[in-house]
């Protein structure tokens, strides 16, 4: 498939997973992580309302700016102070994200 992108995701045990996902289906990163059978809590299902899909971005990519909701949610969950924190449910998969590296935040597990 032409529109597949690759993203490196480090799980809570430090293991790296190279996941692939289509960039033209309107998926977000949380959904892609889930679809690749990785454990991610994502309680609210993608509404930027729980912070249990928190990731830390490990390499530089031109990411879309945070919405006010995302920033406020990260702040409420005391995660905004961790540099490069994002909610993976708010990162829409686009071709620009190919090669992105993220690490799952602690709140994504039990």
């Amino acid at each position, binding site marked *: 498939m032409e529109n597949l992108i690759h993203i490196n995701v480090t799980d809570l045990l430090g293991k790296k997973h190279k996941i692939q996902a289509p960039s033209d289906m309107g998926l977000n990163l949380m959904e892609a992580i889930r679809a690749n059978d990785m454990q991610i809590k994502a*309680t*609210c299902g993608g*509404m930027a309302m*729980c912070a249990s899909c928190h990731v830390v971005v490990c390499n530089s990519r031109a990411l879309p700016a945070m919405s*006010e909701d995302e920033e*406020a949610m990260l702040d*409420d*969950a005391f995660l905004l102070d961790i540099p490069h924190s994002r909610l993976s449910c708010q990162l829409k998969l686009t071709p620009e994200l190919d090669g992105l590296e993220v690490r799952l935040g602690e709140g994504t597990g*039990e």
Partner: protein
Amino acid sequence: MPNYFFLTKRVIETDILIIGAGPCGLFTVFQAGLVQLHCHLIDSLPTAGGQLAEIYPKKPIYDIPGFPIVLAGDLVNNLTKQAEPFKPGYTLGERAEYLEKMEDGRWKLTTNKGTEHAAPVIAIAAGLGCFEPRKPEIYNLSDFEDSGVDYIIKDPEKYRGKNVVISGGGDSALDWTIFLADVAKSVTLIHRRTIFRGHLDSVKKVNDLAGNGKISLVLNSEVTAINGVGKLENLEITNFDNDQITKVSADYFIPLFGLSPKLGPLKHWNLSLHKESIKVNPQDYSTNIPGIYAIGDINDYPGKLRLILCGFHEATLMVQSAYKYIYPDKNLVLRYTTVSGVKAF
């Protein structure tokens, strides 16, 4: 004869004891009512509705059959209304903690506050577990949990005439600040940033209250220490700009940073689990323990979909099985509400 009644603790008795008052739990009451079974609901939150009421009451839902669009909060209100004819009992603001089998074969369930319930059937409709408040990192915070620190406001009257400090920047921090401004002796709202999220008119109201001197607004700051002997007496607030610490006297400190779900005590009930879910038989959503069922987001079976509408289906089938479990010798005939109506208790 002396009256020893005060020595006997009242045990709440019912047919199906439902853990979790979210959409599935509420619809179970309706379905159970149709076959004349009584229900009682337990929820760790102070109001019914689960995630829908607590996390996204204003979000529209589009996949409830018959409702092209419905707000989560409205759906919950309607489900509560639909359950009303069957007079469900509620134990709210308490967490289902201990489960044990009684001599007569029924289950006894005790909450974290010591309320006791007895029922032949337990239906776990606990969604993603019980919601627990996010707590700011203050080393001795837990020492004051019964003596000045509250994470959930159950009875606002408690704060009448008291000095209250609220911390947080979301809707609940704003709403309670506005509400308590007329109740408490003083209200201080502390936020770690300079802008608030939440409804614009709430933000405006809070700013107006601060402008009129009705409340104190402390921005770009957070509570870093709490002090008191036996009960909360004062808080230390650190300002991020200059690291200056200000002491504020307080009777109550209410951190409102939202809630996050935890599977909680039912992890220890010997149920067969898969990750954070309870494994069930997809025929009737029974668990590995006879008399205990699990429905909705908390269960797992091949093909499981975490959708409200699937939870309704599960609740319906589960009640049929629960009926047969409670009355093994009785026959249950499916009757349509269009034919028999709803016979209220």
